């Protein structure tokens, strides 16, 4: 056993709190250690060279590196070992930065702990074995979940590169939230004008299979080889026969609030969500349709010229295989009704931002005319309240929704364009306009469009003489203020969704308490989920505007292309392995394995033993913890390796 120990200064990130020389000196006293060096930056080129040189000149066969978190640089140093001709799994990492120098202040204590950590690592290193990975085929198809702008962009990028994509959208049409918007910042181009062509393009792309009104039901498998069950919900309309003429939607006697118009007007039980919907095919809302509920009516069926109404249609389940998955499930508005003080629901002239988008839109319920919902009057004063459901820890949303500052400025401009005589007041706390041309956009709202910014939150809204009275504060003036407005727009913050949380569970990827998906590394792996082969794009990861969502979608697409450009994939060798001789055939491992990675194997003498499929095994080690005779070991975390680590850390009585 020839162990080499390398202690990184990490600039002074480690060496400022840990006496790295002393740690190296101590390492030299440990059994098996041949050399111990300190390196200013082990991850730098000279650092890597030094390690390689030592491996080759001194014939090192186990390497211990005391540096940062293995999450940051384990891969880097594995590569160094491989380049020096050593099996990369003969590396053990001691985290002297995140677990020691950064979290302790006392130099002596930190140095003592660093010595222990190196001790533990050397002890484990002595028990490391060379490991090799196996290879599995990669399915070249990609599944994109969510048909908003992020999902569409990702699907198009992959499809354009010549690979097949399935795009699954749970609502009857693609387009997502962006389709609801009127004009979009910072250029104020019409949302529909830039989105609709993309919707059409993705729907007609030869490499894209579009599943609208469909949901992911079940996911199994692993990177390169996912099996996905998709539920195609019954539209009750035959998509082949329907021509999208829409006469059924005109005749339907049922009225239900339109989801697309945020409840500002009604749609029928059979409806096309909006004129530019893709596919342009109606859907029957089973929860309100009189025919479904009472077997009465059936008017649509009578009127349909092509006989496309299919009340008997059932949900369909299809199972497909994919190599990679992109999740782009978007966001929704947080529940603004918790703000009783703003009077939403009580006063018709208090509306949400998304409702205002629909009012501003020429295809919206008011035909693009800004009107009060109470009396149809044009407002003279429009008030916008920012941070409704953002930066509000007391209401469970401590984060910044990042888009409201910008769309509030946008509303100021659009309002003044529609109603040049109207006054606009924006109650804000801070203005966050940090992207390209954003600050200029906000400036323009103030300078050219005369938006009145008042720094302070509003505490209460009530009615006086048919107008909304806002009780607020101007913290710059340092006094309370009051504003009479005709229309109040709540700039509601955005949140992850419950359905994303449910999907995350099916996909086995992590999410936070707000329903946003968690990226693998906040800086270095921003579009990778916690599970290999599953990527995230758009506002399902964090509040995001359109440019960022599109950028992240393309980024996720490029990650997918990187993955499926390989014909075969190396699987991690850190998987479970059965020592056949020790297996007593109780198959408790098989019973607990969450990945169905364990199978029965019949030996020639007829005895049955367990066997691991390394492609399915994810390396959790549950089997290893369950096996009574320890016949199944998780490579890289074997009982022996863990016991040796614990013994050296306890040091009291290693000879148990």
């Amino acid at each position: 056993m020839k162990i080499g120990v390398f202690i990184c200064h990490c600039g002074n990130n480690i060496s400022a709190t840990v006496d790295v020389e002393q740690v190296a000196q101590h390492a030299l006293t440990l059994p098996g250690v041949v050399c111990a060096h300190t390196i200013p930056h082990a991850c730098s080129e000279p650092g890597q060279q030094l390690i390689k040189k030592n491996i080759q000149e001194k014939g090192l066969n186990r390497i211990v590196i005391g540096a940062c978190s293995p999450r940051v640089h384990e891969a880097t140093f594995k590569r160094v070992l491989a380049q020096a001709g050593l099996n990369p799994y003969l590396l053990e990492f001691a985290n002297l930065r995140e677990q020691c120098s950064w979290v302790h202040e006392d130099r002596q204590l930190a140095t003592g702990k660093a010595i222990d950590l190196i001790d533990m690592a050397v002890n484990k290193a002595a028990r490391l074995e060379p490991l090799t990975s196996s290879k599995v085929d990669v399915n070249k198809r990609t599944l994109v979940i969510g048909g908003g702008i992020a999902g569409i962009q990702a699907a198009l990028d992959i499809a354009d590169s010549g690979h097949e994509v399935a795009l699954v959208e749970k609502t009857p049409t693609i387009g997502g939230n962006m389709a609801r918007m009127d004009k979009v910042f910072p250029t104020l181009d019409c949302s529909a004008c830039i989105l609709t062509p993309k919707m059409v393009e993705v729907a007609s792309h030869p490499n894209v299979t579009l599943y609208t009104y469909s949901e992911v039901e079940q996911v199994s498998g692993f990177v390169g080889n996912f099996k996905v069950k998709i539920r195609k919900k019954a539209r009750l309309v035959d998509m082949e026969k329907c021509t999208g003429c829409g006469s059924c939607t005109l005749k339907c006697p049922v009225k239900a609030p339109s989801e697309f118009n945020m409840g500002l007007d009604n749609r029928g039980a059979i409806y096309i969500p909006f004129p530019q919907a893709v596919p342009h095919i109606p859907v029957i809302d089973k929860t309100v349709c009189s025919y479904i509920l009472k077997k009465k009516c059936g008017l649509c069926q009578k009127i349909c010229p092509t006989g496309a109404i299919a009340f008997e249609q059932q949900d369909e389940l299809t199972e497909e295989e994919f190599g990679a998955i992109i999740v782009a499930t978007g966001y929704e508005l947080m529940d603004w009704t918790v703000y009783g003080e703003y009077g939403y629901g009580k006063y018709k002239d208090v509306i949400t931002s998304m409702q205002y988008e629909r009012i501003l839109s020429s295809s919206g319920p008011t035909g693009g005319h800004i009107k009060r919902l109470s009396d149809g009057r044009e407002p003279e004063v429009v008030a916008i309240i920012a941070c409704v459901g953002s930066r509000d820890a007391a209401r469970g949303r401590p984060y910044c929704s990042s888009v409201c500052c910008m769309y509030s400025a946008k509303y100021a401009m659009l309002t003044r364009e529609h109603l040049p005589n109207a006054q606009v007041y924006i109650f804000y706390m801070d203005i966050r306009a940090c992207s390209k041309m954003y600050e200029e956009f906000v400036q323009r709202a103030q300078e050219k469009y005369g938006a009145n910014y008042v720094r302070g939150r509003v505490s209460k809204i009530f009615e006086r003489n048919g107008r909304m009275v806002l009780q607020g504060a101007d913290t710059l003036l340092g006094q309370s203020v009051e504003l009479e407005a005709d229309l109040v727009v709540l700039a509601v913050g955005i949140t992850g969704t419950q359905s994303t949380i449910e999907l995350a569970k099916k996909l086995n990827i992590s999410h936070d308490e707000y329903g946003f998906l968690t990226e693998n590394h906040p800086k270095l792996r921003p579009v990778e989920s916690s599970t290999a082969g599953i990527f995230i794009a758009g506002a399902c990861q964090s509040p995001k505007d359109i440019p960022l969502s599109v950028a992240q979608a393309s980024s996720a697409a490029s990650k997918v292309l990187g993955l499926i450009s390989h014909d075969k994939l190396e699987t991690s060798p850190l998987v479970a392995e059965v020592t056949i001789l020790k297996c007593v055939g109780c198959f408790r491992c098989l019973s607990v394995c969450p990945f169905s990675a364990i199978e029965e194997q019949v030996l020639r003498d007829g005895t049955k033993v367990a066997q691991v499929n390394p492609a399915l095994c994810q390396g959790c080690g549950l089997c290893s913890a369950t096996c009574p005779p320890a016949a199944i070991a998780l490579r890289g975390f074997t009982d022996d390796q863990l016991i040796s680590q614990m013994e050296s850390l306890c040091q009291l009585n290693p000879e148990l």
Partner: protein
Amino acid sequence: MNRTLKLNQLDDQFIKQIEQTSGQKLNDCYQCGKCTAGCPIAHSTDLPPHKIIRMLQLGIKDQVLSSPTIWLCLSCVTCTARCPKGVDLACIMDSLRELAIKEGVPQAQKQPIKLFEKLFLDAIKRHGRLYEMGTLARFNLLTLKPFQDMELLLPLLKRGKLKLTPESIKDVEKLAQIFASSASDSEVH
């Protein structure tokens, strides 16, 4: 008032003291102003609530303790209820009043609030609930302003908001025991 404020001469001890007695973290406040926005007396103060807490963050002791705001505060707790950061400003106001009395700030000595609170508690002790009419009458007499707020009397009576005679709860004696056992606490007021 408009002199330049020398930030590094301010009172750190004061900040700690208020945080300790109120149990609130002053730096939680990010000055959104929602407390002032909802405060029913903000319009008649020299320092509206958000300014009070801003001054506390900086440690401006004298001006805060001598501000009428802390005596005008009605403890209606709208600020606390609306604060997006969960700062209990009403509680901070309590702490400030307490401190002002303890430190003998002249403005604190003039406040009839101490008397009012004593009379309030007396009424509770006697009846188990507030007897507004009696408390107000005693308060007006003892502050030598017998006709204070007299114009409100009639409308309040008309709407049934004031009762002429006191109402008592069952087992007033038990309440007296509670008062007795916490006698030392009530002395703080």
